[in-house]
């Protein structure tokens, strides 16, 4: 039980820094440290006012159209036009003025010790980050900002205070200035580390063939539904919703209902697929994953909105190979970073910030994972310990209950109310039971856990299979859960808590004894004092 760890990764309980560069970085050599510049305050780029003006013009234009059509019904045409125009001008002018004031009142300074930002009109906000704590500098630029040569810079520390206290946002600065900030704040710091003989430079670049996985992602049906919704919404603005429905009904007057439904569903699906392809191109165009000389990972991507996300290696605690069902059926998966201090408060950004790789063939994903983690073979590919059959029984029982409970309800209603419901129940059961059994079997097969060098590996999930490889030294505690039924089946659910990513990664339904031994081996010294042979009867 108490055997020492097989190799590096967990040496004793307190092993907080996973990479050998703790504390402030040594400023050695020229061209590595930040170029000294005046300690004066800098302003954001004044062209932000133009960008805001243009964006608001677009927004106001978009909003004005339905308003105009609405008013045109009540007022004379010229009056409606004048009203809408005046309103639009007012909105744009107000936005431009507000942005101008914001620009006037915002200053930032990157000093030798701290990065500071002062902003605000009445309530002046002063935010200051210690430079040695800065862990991420992300650059994004939407189409308009790119036209003007601007970028938005987001500087973050690894802390998860949750309230956004730990990020500075410079929106926007000139592109060159953004690059300079990024180099100076992240990559510039730890120069001494590049002695390691691992592959620097390009880790992965876009293969246009990967687009074939875009239509099978969950994005496609969502976008298909959204397309139908958008048609309905826009037609409602113009008061034409009834006519759209009417027109659709006219097309299908002579066709049978089943065919109509099929054709409409197909149309939505095609729209969804086209949307998913476009979405993929916008998200991943020009994708490159690089390791920079200082040891930071950098993801660059985006067709219209360009994004550059840097993850300092000190923040990286592992990788997560995510295989959503549709993508997995085609043997592909995507790679997410498990890193501390990813912006948590806005979830939509959170999702984008941790993606290291789009859906790619599994072999490529494993290869890139190995390069990211600087391992010769990826921990995500190691053979895993299979969970006991009791876990399969639990999954089967759960899936069948999910199918049979509604079936029983329908059947009961069928007996009491309407016999038609009986056939509904029969059909539901006939389709649902095999499907549920299949999914349950898949869920069981996907369960697994193991140790691979310095990493702990846990896999689970059907709809979204996730294989996470977590640095053992990044595990900051354990939670063991056991329900009444798990107790009877001798199973436990283990959660390795960590400062990174989701905050904790689960090993579902492992064998009780084997799971505890696994956890104890993963983090030597943490669990051992609380384990004892099972023969003793537990009092109470």
């Amino acid at each position, binding site marked *: *039980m*108490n055997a020492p760890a097989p190799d590096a990764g967990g040496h004793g*309980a*307190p*092993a*907080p*820094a996973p990479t050998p560069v*703790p504390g402030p970085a040594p400023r050695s050599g020229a061209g590595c440290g930040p170029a000294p510049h005046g300690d004066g305050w800098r302003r954001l780029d004044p062209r932000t006012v133009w960008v805001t003006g243009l964006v608001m013009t677009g927004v106001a234009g978009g909003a004005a159209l339905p308003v105009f059509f609405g008013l045109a019904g009540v007022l004379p045409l010229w009056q409606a036009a004048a009203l809408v125009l005046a309103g639009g001008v007012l909105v744009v002018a107000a936005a431009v003025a507000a942005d101008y004031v914001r620009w006037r009142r915002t200053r930032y300074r990157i000093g030798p010790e701290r990065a500071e930002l002062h902003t605000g009109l009445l309530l002046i906000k002063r935010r200051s980050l210690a430079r040695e704590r800065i862990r991420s500098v992300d650059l994004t630029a939407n189409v308009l900002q790119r036209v003007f040569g601007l970028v938005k810079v987001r500087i973050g520390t*690894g802390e*998860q205070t949750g309230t956004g206290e730990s990020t500075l946002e410079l929106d926007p600065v000139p592109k060159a200035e953004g690059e300079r900030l990024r180099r100076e704040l992240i990559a510039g710091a730890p120069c001494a580390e590049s002695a390691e003989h691992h592959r620097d430079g390009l880790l992965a670049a876009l293969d246009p063939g990967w687009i074939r996985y875009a239509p099978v992602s969950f994005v496609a049906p969502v976008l298909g539904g959204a397309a139908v919704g958008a048609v309905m919404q826009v037609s409602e603005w113009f008061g034409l919703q009834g006519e759209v429905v009417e027109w659709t009904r006219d097309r299908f007057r002579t066709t049978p209902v089943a065919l109509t439904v099929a054709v409409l569903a197909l149309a939505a699906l095609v729209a969804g697929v086209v949307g998913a392809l476009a979405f993929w191109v916008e998200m991943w165009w020009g994708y490159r994953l690089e390791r920079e000389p200082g040891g930071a990972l950098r993801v660059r991507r985006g067709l219209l909105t360009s994004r550059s996300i840097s993850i300092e290696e000190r923040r990286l605690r592992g990788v997560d190979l995510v295989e959503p069902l549709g993508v997995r059926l085609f043997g592909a998966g995507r790679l997410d970073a498990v890193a*501390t201090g990813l912006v*948590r408060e806005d979830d939509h950004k959170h999702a984008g910030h941790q993606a290291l790789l789009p859906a790619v063939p599994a072999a490529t994903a494993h290869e890139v994972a190995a390069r990211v983690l600087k391992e010769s073979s990826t921990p995500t590919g190691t053979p895993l310990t299979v969970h006991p059959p009791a876990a399969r029984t639990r999954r089967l029982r759960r899936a069948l209950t999910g199918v049979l409970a509604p079936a029983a309800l329908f059947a009961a209603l069928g007996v009491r109310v309407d016999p038609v419901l009986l056939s509904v129940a029969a059909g539901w059961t006939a389709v649902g039971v095999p499907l549920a059994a299949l999914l349950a079997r898949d869920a069981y097969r996907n369960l697994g856990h193991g140790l691979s060098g310095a990493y702990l590996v846990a896999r689970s999930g059907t709809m979204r299979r996730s294989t996470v490889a977590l640095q053992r030294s*990044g595990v*900051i*505690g*354990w*939670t*063991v*859960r*056991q*329900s*009444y039924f798990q*107790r009877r089946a001798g199973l436990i659910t283990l*959660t390795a*808590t*960590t*400062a*990174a990513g*989701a*905050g*904790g990664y689960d090993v579902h339904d492992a064998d*009780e*004894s084997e799971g*505890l*031994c696994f956890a104890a081996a993963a*983090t030597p*010294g*943490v*669990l*051992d*004092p*609380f*384990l*004892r*042979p*099972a023969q003793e009867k*537990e*009092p*109470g």
Partner: protein
Amino acid sequence: MAGEKTVRLRPPANRMNRRAVTWWRVQCLLTAAVPVGVLVVLAAFIEPARRWLLVAAGALALLGLAGTAFFPAWWYRVHRWEVTDEAVYVRTGALWQEWRIAPMSRIQTVDTMRGPLEQAFRLATVTVTTASARGEIRIQGLDHETAADLAEQLTRITQATPGDAT
């Protein structure tokens, strides 16, 4: 050590304070009393549905009383805590049992909290947080002096332990 033999987690050393049982019972009663009270008031005003509302209120009250009689005693048997020089170790739950372990080197903050009901019973809750969003440990139902001592001890140990806790 156990080696290939089967192992399990041993229960933590310390029980909660005895008064915690009463505190939990009062909590249970209050939780049940609110919906029962609402139903009874409704029954008083709504003539036609009075019988059904009263039946529902009675059933709820019965459930609440049964829960009050049953669960706090069970919780008292299960809930345990222990603080060693290396880690904080807590067991909670009844139907769903949960063991939580946080090494001292990873503890970030230690809070002591006393709600109004806890104050009445001279109890306190100590919350230990780590850098993980899911790593929080709560030790409920401690005597308030024990809790203060414990918080002080934890703060002392964690300050003496090096590392940035991530």
